[in-house]
């Protein structure tokens, strides 16, 4: 038993020894950054101790020398006295003198050695001090590196699927790739932060030139700025712009490239009705700094100012060899973009799949130190190597920024859940939560518990809506749609049911996109009580010839519709059968799920036998984009600043059932189609805005969609960071968290 116990103890001793070894080794590795300084300090301290000891020895030797001299003098005095004594005493004296002289010689030697040691120690001390100073300087420099070009740490919630910027604009068009890759991509023109005003980047012309007719075509020549360089120091030229176009065309790239470079495609179905393909025919470099765009006809805003003028530009020198003769875009997309020349503020540096991505500051970033001022009136002024002014600059300054990058690098860490990311934010592991959906409202208070974190709220550029299938009864009847719209009390839903989480919307262009929005649009039956809504909806239907077997009545005593409508029939006597409202389930989006239940209930009051069906997102998409056997659904859109989507969503020639477009309700209105054509051809932004407002008004009347609500984008970040502004449509995430502009707060 005892032997066993001893044996066990021995085992534990062995384990403990191994653990101690590991711990010691681990401990030795820690604090490697300060090791050099610590070592130098230790050396300096040792040298100081040595010097002190040597000095003490020197002092002692000097004292011994003094003592020896005194002894010698005493001995000489004694000798003089003894001279007068006997021989024995004289001999004794001689011996004493010899001893004293020897002691003096020894003392002198010791003093000399001690002085030499002291001098050597002093030298060692000086050397150690110099080494310590050097080490301290290195540490200080490193500390300055951390405090100056700091690391901007962002949390993202999905792994970027590619590190190739071409692929990101094609098959890999997702927001996570955009966050990581787009800060390295230059464009001729771009949307400025925070007002989304179109401003020049690589272009020398302040506004995108409109061009002129040339034969059957339309030609636009753009002058580019000289002196702008890629991150590798090579100049950015018109050849790069032309190369990008030719690569996209030659490799038949799709995805976002369709919108960015709307090529004249020979397989375009629209061309069957036309003599030639419509769109961008060619892009060529007239010289190093002049690029020519040739169009089949004059391009509208969507094609030019908000399309090709804002298309990505890639370095021909770097990517040219990868654009092979095989004509396969996949070969190009397989090439890593790590370290590829950047024309933006950051250079994409590294991707560790599943863990993080990193961009580093572009040391050759253009316009570093330039000042950009944005005004509430939409205007922007720029002062740097060039100076320009765009738009009306009479309003208040809403952002004033100095060209960066200020951060040394940006690290995008992947978290799968917001809960973990919020803990990481509070713990200092990340500085900003980058998410297109923003911070979950429930986590806001957790973030704000930490004193060094801020949460901002911005309007999102998107909406969630109820759509009718206008191809079949009863959705085909405008009165039916209007009555439904009238019954939906958005204010009640936003305030009482959804507790302020949702913001009611009445137009296709959210008010946050102020330049394009139509502020005069009101919801159907706006400001009415529930009783008034019921009465108004009944009246709308009656006026259009609808009838009931049992007409719905508002009962003031019960404050409810009693009896509810029954046997609702259309103007031609067709009975309204069972209808289905497809909406995402509460697990996917509780707001839309809740809304669908209320809408079904209000419809039932009117006698419309509508049932809300919580349905998977993919199922809804598959069903409504495919065959037309659906009645109503609730989904949402994320939108663009230039609202040509209004045309895409409702142009009868873009019917999803027949043309595979985005007009899912199958709305058909020739007047609207004509406006859509005008919008697509319009080249003046103010005229275009007027057309969009008209289109919005038509849609508000015809109600193919009932636009329901939008939600604010909440964003959380550390308040040691400073952004040029924190107020912008769709939040800072729409500008990728501003890695090129963020700075440390003063």
């Amino acid at each position: 038993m005892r032997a066993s116990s001893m044996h066990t103890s021995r085992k534990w001793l062995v384990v403990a020894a191994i653990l101690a070894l590991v711990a010691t080794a681990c401990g030795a590795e820690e604090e490697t950054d300060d090791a050099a300084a610590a070592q130098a300090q230790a050396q300096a301290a040792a040298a100081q101790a040595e010097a002190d000891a040597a000095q003490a020895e020197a002092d002692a030797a000097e004292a011994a020398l003094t003592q020896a001299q005194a002894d010698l003098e005493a001995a000489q005095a004694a000798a003089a006295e003894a001279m007068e004594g006997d021989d024995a005493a004289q001999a004794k004296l001689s011996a004493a003198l010899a001893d004293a002289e020897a002691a003096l010689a020894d003392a002198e030697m010791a003093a000399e050695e001690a002085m030499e040691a002291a001098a050597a120690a002093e030298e060692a001390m000086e050397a150690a001090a110099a080494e310590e100073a050097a080490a301290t300087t290195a540490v200080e420099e490193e500390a300055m590196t951390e405090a100056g070009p700091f690391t901007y740490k962002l949390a993202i919630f999905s792994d970027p699927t590619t590190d190739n910027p071409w692929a990101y604009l094609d098959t890999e068009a997702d927001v996570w790739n955009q966050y990581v890759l787009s800060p390295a991509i230059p464009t001729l023109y771009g949307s400025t932060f925070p007002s989304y005003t179109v401003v020049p980047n690589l272009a020398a012309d302040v506004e995108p030139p409109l061009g002129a007719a040339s034969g059957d075509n339309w030609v636009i020549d753009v002058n580019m700025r000289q002196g702008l360089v890629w991150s590798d120091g090579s100049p950015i030229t018109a050849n790069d712009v032309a190369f990008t176009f030719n690569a996209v065309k030659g490799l038949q790239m799709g995805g976002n490239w369709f919108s960015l470079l709307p090529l004249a495609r020979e397989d375009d179905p629209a061309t069957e009705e036309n003599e030639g393909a419509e769109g961008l025919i060619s892009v060529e470099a007239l010289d190093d700094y002049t690029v020519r765009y040739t169009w089949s006809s004059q391009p509208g805003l969507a094609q030019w100012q908000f399309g090709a003028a804002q298309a990505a530009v890639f370095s021909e020198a770097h990517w040219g060899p990868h654009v092979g003769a095989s004509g396969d875009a996949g070969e190009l997309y397989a090439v890593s973009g790590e370290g590829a020349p950047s024309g933006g503020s950051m250079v994409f540096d590294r991707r560790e799949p599943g863990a993080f991505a990193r961009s580093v500051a572009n040391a050759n970033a253009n316009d570093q130190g330039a000042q950009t001022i944005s005004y509430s009136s939409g205007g922007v002024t720029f002062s740097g190597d060039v100076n320009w002014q765009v738009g009306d600059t009479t309003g208040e300054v809403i952002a004033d920024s100095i060209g960066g990058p200020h951060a040394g690098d940006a690290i995008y860490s992947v978290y799968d859940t917001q809960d973990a990311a919020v803990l990481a934010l509070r713990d200092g592991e990340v500085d900003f939560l980058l998410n297109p959906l923003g911070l979950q409202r429930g986590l806001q208070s957790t973030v704000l518990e930490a004193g060094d974190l801020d949460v901002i709220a911005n309007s999102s550029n998107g909406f969630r809506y109820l759509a009718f299938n206008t191809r079949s009864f009863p959705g085909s009847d405008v009165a039916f749609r209007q009555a439904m719209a009238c019954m939906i009390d958005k204010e009640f839903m936003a305030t009482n049911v959804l507790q302020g989480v949702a913001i009611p919307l009445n137009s296709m262009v959210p008010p946050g996109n102020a330049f394009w929005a139509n502020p005069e649009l009101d919801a159907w039956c706006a400001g009415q009580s529930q009783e008034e809504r019921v009465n108004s909806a009944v009246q709308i239907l009656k006026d259009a010839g609808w009838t009931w077997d049992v007409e719905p009545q508002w009962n003031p005593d019960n404050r409810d519709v009693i009896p509810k409508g029954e046997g609702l029939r259309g103007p031609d006597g067709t009975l309204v059968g069972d209808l289905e409202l497809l909406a995402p389930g509460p697990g996917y989006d509780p707001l839309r799920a809740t809304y669908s239940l209320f809408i079904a209930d209000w419809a039932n009051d009117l006698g419309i036998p509508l049932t809300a069906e919580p349905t998977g997102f993919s199922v809804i998409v598959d069903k409504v984009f495919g065959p037309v056997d659906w009645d109503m659904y609730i989904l949402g859109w994320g939108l663009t600043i230039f609202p040509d989507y209004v045309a895409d969503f409702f142009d009868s020639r873009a019917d999803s059932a027949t043309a595979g477009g985005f007009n899912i309700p199958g709305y058909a209105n020739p007047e609207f189609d004509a406006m859509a054509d005008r919008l697509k051809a319009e080249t003046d932004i103010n005229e275009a805005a007027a057309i969009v407002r008209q289109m919005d008004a038509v849609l508000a009347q015809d109600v193919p969609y009932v636009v329901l609500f939008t939600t604010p984008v909440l964003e959380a970040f550390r308040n040691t960071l400073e952004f040029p502004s924190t107020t912008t449509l769709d939040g800072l995430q729409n500008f990728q968290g501003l890695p090129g502009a963020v700075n440390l707060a003063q």
Partner: protein
Amino acid sequence: MIRYIARRTVQMFVLFIIFLTLTFLLLTALPGDTVKQRFATNPNIPPEAAQLAIERLGLDKPLWEQYSSYMWNFFRGDFGFSFLQYPRPVSDIILERLPRTLVLFLTVLVSYYILGFVAGKFIAWRRGRRGEHAITIGSVFLYTVFYPWFALMLIWFFAFYADVVPINKFLDPEEWVDAPFSSNHVFMVIFGVMLVAGTVALTLWILSRRIRDPARRKRTVWVGYGALAVVMLWFWYLSDFGSARRLYAGDILHHMILPVVTITLISFAGIMLLTRSSMLETMREDFILTARAKGLAEKTVRDRHAARTALLPVTTSLVIAVATVIDGGIITETVYSWPGMGELLFTSVVGQDTNLAIAAFSFVGVMAMVGHLVVDILYMFLDPRIRVTGE
């Protein structure tokens, strides 16, 4: 035996074809497709672009053509490219995810099997005492606790409040930004070391069984383990290859602590109860009575007679678990931001990345079938009552 294995292999192959076919049909039967999911709700991308993507991914072809083409390529070792990470080959993505899952879940497996077996042995021996009740109630409570909540609580406490382990992920980005190796490479090194060390330790243990003198056997085992530890220390601290990767491997292992602890706490009860019931059954056997009658120490009866026999079902359960470990755990990998095979299976199915999902499922399927075959063969060796008959 060889005929038996050959027959089982043919059966497995047929089963695998059926498995692949069903997986393909089920995945393609899902409503919508990957292009619709990605492009249909993005008004920036016109319908022509979606059509181009459909053609590029081969989704415009008839189903039977997609199926036959897929099967033909699959058995030639070409799993195609991922729809979600076009044009990255599926095999590339699986090879990226597999080591992460193997390293984490093999560690977890060993950890909770050892804990479960030891605890099961202990409570079976102490049946009816307070210790048994306390351990059983505690472990079953953990076994039934709502896992994501429990994991988040542990993250909050150990990673955020106590700050002793990292919050999620499998590495610290700031440590890795200038790393000369990819994390995948380091995972492979860790996995290799685990494999070698595990094999050596197991071989040592098996060989030591031949030594009859218990004291000498124990000494031999411990000396062997000590030597193994020294070799490991030499590898990580003194060899150029290991020392260059030590910091990165250490970072990964540091991030593994919390997931391993969490799953071990949640899962060991199952093995514990299995061991307990097996032990209790064994303890009723005559040979245990004989062993006691011979005057052997209780510890010897427990460990060398009862526990070894009770190990049989636990071993077979372990082999099956090893075979299915590559599917990882969706919840674990999501809660801990540890993107391995479990998360890959989930995202590929949800994103309707058919090529990727089928290939990932096929790995799980093959491993599960091989695992069952190994169990059957193991049973024949371990349990003398089972023999292949009718040959």
